């Protein structure tokens, strides 16, 4: 081995030939240094402890014109003045979006200020005027923020809060849809004078089966129905019940998926609006897989209250505009685009009758909204509109808004929530012709058509959702978890550093530098991609520390072997080069496993997999790139005889 020449070729394409010329390309130092600086920058925000802060947002406070009160610098100034006149010092204040953020020097001062502000802003017994929420404010310097630097977000298991998973009840939704459809089918058969066998229960699961006396009648039914039903939504097939020829109409999986998507979208919209009103800092409302929605509410503790608020959102009412001769007691007045519109109290169709609404274009390319009603809704709509052509019809949007009030009970401020209806007109349009199951509203701008479709969908009865998972983590447990996680990282890290130093001496020191850098890069990557840090994530980080050692160990044991037969300036590059293939193989396969975890896992598994995957990639970089550079700096000269390894 001593007299062979080592030509290492590695992933970066450069060859390092050792013996006489033992050079380490300068660009590698530059890249290493660059990575150190960039990683340091992006990891930096995590070092700044956040400020204790209070966030103020308008709830029911109106300005003199009756519009929602706008928080401005004048108002913020008053708030700060009020706090400081009570001997609580304010660190800083700023306007963020439509709210105010007041920062304090300590948690005690913040909590004092919160009590003061509650009393001052929200007089007891009244509807809540402002939402006064406790918050932790980021203290990352502006220049770091300007390059996208931000601290890692803490998961619910660390920050405390509630995690909900809701699932669309598709079975019920499909059953309703099919029951509805079956009546339409029977109607059509009756209209075409095709006799089906009476008294049958036609709906089973996802299909409708109708039997006939003989095959000839069945074939006629088939051809009649095929005019109305077909792919991609329905499948029509001939079949046989016990004794009779029959027709089976089944809903396709494509259509079910469409219904699911619609239901999810509708519920997402509703939930987002609701969660925003809860005014939680950094809430998360997200689709999960095919038919579920995740709602994360950091900092919230009362799950029964949260569930109540998330329960019901909005509905719709289609009503006729006032007609001459209507008695005032039969009418209601609503504002619509700056004017008052009188509409009848009688409801034609409700939100639960609306199946779908989409923005689209008419034959002239003008924006419109298409909406679909269910059978009873469509029938009723037809009956009413056929007698009222050229008359106006209005759509009333009724939203259930949570209203918070507070009162003093035994000297403690207690907040309670009630649900209040807010009603407003979202459309007043002329009836061109008799409407039916499928109708459209024209004469809108593109924006209006989108908004209106959104409202119609939000007010329609979505497939019901139910809670399938709920996890509440108390604030104190969250803090304990952070503490424990942090301690584990520190202890584990120190143990490894000490061991490496003792076992590999100078090289151990180099490995430790690489390991430290590795941890910084992992934190930097997680911060900059906005990954959430969870307890399993911390475990992943700890494990990464243990495993990141491996690449270094592989290299060092190779170097030790090579040193038995060759001089240091030969052995060191040889060790690096020959270990490279092994490191690549070993890490790639581990990365596979981590990625599988990431894609198939959810919750704790995903949190763990994210840190593990990032750690594997960065540890390869630091071991091969950085540690080699440092070793070269120390032992790069050709006259080195003794190596401390």
């Amino acid at each position, binding site marked *: 081995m001593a007299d062979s020449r*080592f030509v*290492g*070729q590695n992933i970066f394409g450069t060859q390092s030939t050792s013996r006489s010329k033992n050079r380490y390309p300068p660009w590698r130092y530059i890249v290493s240094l660059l990575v150190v600086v960039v990683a340091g920058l992006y990891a930096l925000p995590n070092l700044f402890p956040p400020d204790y802060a209070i966030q103020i947002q308008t709830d029911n406070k109106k300005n003199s014109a009756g519009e929602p009160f706008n928080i401005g610098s004048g108002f913020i100034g008053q708030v700060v003045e009020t706090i400081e006149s009570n001997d609580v010092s304010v660190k800083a204040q700023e306007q963020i979006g439509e709210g105010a953020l007041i920062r304090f020097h300590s948690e005690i001062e913040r909590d004092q200020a919160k009590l003061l502000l509650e009393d001052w802003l929200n007089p007891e017994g009244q509807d809540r005027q402002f939402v006064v929420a406790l918050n932790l404010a980021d203290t990352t310097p502006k220049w770091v923020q300007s390059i996208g630097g931000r601290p890692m977000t803490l998961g619910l298991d660390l920050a405390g809060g509630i995690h909900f*998973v809701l*699932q669309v009840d598709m079975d019920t939704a499909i059953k309703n849809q099919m029951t509805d459809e079956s009546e339409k089918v029977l109607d059509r058969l009756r209209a075409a004078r095709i006799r089906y066998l009476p008294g049958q229960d036609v709906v089973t699961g996802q299909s409708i089966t109708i039997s006939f006396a003989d095959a000839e009648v069945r074939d006629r039914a088939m051809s009649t129905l095929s005019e109305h039903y077909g792919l991609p939504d329905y499948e029509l097939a001939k079949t046989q019940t016990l004794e009779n020829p029959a027709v089976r109409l089944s809903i396709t999986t494509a259509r079910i998926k469409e219904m699911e998507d619609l239901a999810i979208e509708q519920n997402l919209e509703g939930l987002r609006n609701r969660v925003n009103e809860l005014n939680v800092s950094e809430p998360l409302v997200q689709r999960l897989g095919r038919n579920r929605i995740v709602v994360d509410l950091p900092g919230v503790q009362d799950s*029964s209250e949260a*569930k109540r608020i998330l329960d019901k959102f909005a509905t719709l009412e289609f009503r006729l505009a006032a007609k001459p001769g209507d008695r005032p007691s039969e009418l209601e007045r609503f504002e619509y685009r700056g004017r008052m519109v009188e509409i009848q109290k009688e409801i034609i169709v409700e939100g639960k009758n609306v199946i779908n609404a989409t923005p689209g274009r008419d034959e002239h390319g003008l924006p419109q909204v298409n909406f679909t009603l269910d059978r009873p809704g469509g029938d009723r709509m037809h009956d009413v509109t056929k007698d009222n052509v050229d008359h106006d019809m209005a759509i009333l949007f009724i939203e259930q808004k949570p209203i918070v009030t507070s009162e003093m009970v035994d000297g403690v401020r207690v907040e309670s929530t009630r649900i209040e209806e807010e009603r407003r007109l979202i459309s007043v349009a002329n009836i061109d012709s008799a409407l039916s199951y499928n109708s459209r509203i024209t004469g809108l701008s593109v924006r209006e058509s989108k908004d209106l479709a959104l409202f119609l969908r939000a007010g329609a009865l979505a497939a019901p959702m*139910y*809670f*399938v*998972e*709920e*996890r*509440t983590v*108390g604030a*104190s*447990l969250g803090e*304990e*978890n952070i503490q*424990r*996680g942090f*301690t*584990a*990282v520190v*202890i*584990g*890290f120190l*143990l*490894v550093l000490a*061991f490496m130093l003792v*076992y590999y001496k100078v090289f151990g020191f180099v490995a430790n530098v690489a390991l430290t850098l590795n941890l910084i890069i992992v934190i930097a990557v997680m911060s900059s991609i906005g990954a959430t840090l969870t*307890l399993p994530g911390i*475990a992943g980080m*700890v*494990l990464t520390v*243990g*495993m990141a*050692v*491996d690449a270094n*160990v*592989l290299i060092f*044991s190779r170097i*030790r*072997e090579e040193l038995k037969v060759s001089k240091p300036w030969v052995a060191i590059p040889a060790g690096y080069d020959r270990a490279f293939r*092994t490191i690549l*193989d*070993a890490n*790639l*396969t*581990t990365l*596979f*496993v981590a990625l*599988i*975890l990431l894609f198939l*896992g959810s*919750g*704790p*598994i995903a949190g*763990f*997999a994210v840190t593990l995957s990032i750690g594997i990639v960065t540890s390869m970089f630091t071991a091969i790139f950085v540690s080699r550079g440092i070793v070269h700096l120390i032992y790069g000269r050709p006259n080195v005889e003794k190596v401390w390894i």
Partner: protein
Amino acid sequence: MNIDFMSKRVYALSASAVLFVASVVSLVVMNLEWGLDFTGGVLVEIGFDEAKDPGEVRVLVQEAGYQNAIVQNIGSERDIVIRVPPVEGVDQSVVGDEIYAMLAQNYSGTELLKSDYVGPAVGEDLTQQGALALLVALLLVMVYIMFRFTGKFALGAVFALVHDIVIVAGVFSIMRWTFDLPELAALLAVIGYSLNDTIVVSDRIRENFRAVKRGTSMDVINYSLNQTLGRTLVTSLTTLLVLLALLIAGGEQLFGFAIALTIGVIVGTYSSIYVAASSLLLLGIKSQELALPEKEGATATRS
């Protein structure tokens, strides 16, 4: 250092076989102590301001209508965990709220530490996802090794992986430790870890088969194992060090995860030596199988 690993493989493999069979028997007979994530149900952790007798709380919980609730201390004497198993056809999403509200009424100074509800549908999905993840991981690993090494290496690696997973799960089954999502993550991480070890060893075996033309397959494997032994031990040791930190400082929440990995690392280190390498012998590996194709010669590390 020159340890004759392979001559002792009969003993090692017998030991492995005993452990493996014991694990399988335990898994079949007693199954795993599946946690809430997989079974569904309700778990509430409540902190009291003084030591609390679980028996006393149990009476209250049972009077509130949860007859089959399990009430225990957790972590300290002041913390109580209440588990309510899933009930067919009953919506349990409010059970946690109800139990906490009831206890808060009966005792002052209670604090809700944690409340979990997992519906049966979620549990079923997680079980399927977990099984799928395990299978996909094993399959992909096998394909990758087949591509990078040979079929025999792939088989040896998969033997080792299955060996590790079954034994870790077996220990959980025998010890009646709760097996939840974090433990599943640990099990998958064990695959990654053990694989890492196996590949390093295999890599060296392949290299030596190509370089050392003399000697029996057994000699070559022994030689390779000795060469990699230092690295194998150091890496396992550092990983065990950080796991020790997790076990000491991580608390209740991470205990299962850390212990699963600890067992996995120990078994995985052993299996990369004995299971993966002995399988190669068992499968009759020959140096000719690993001869370098001409084309690759140019990029090999040795010229």
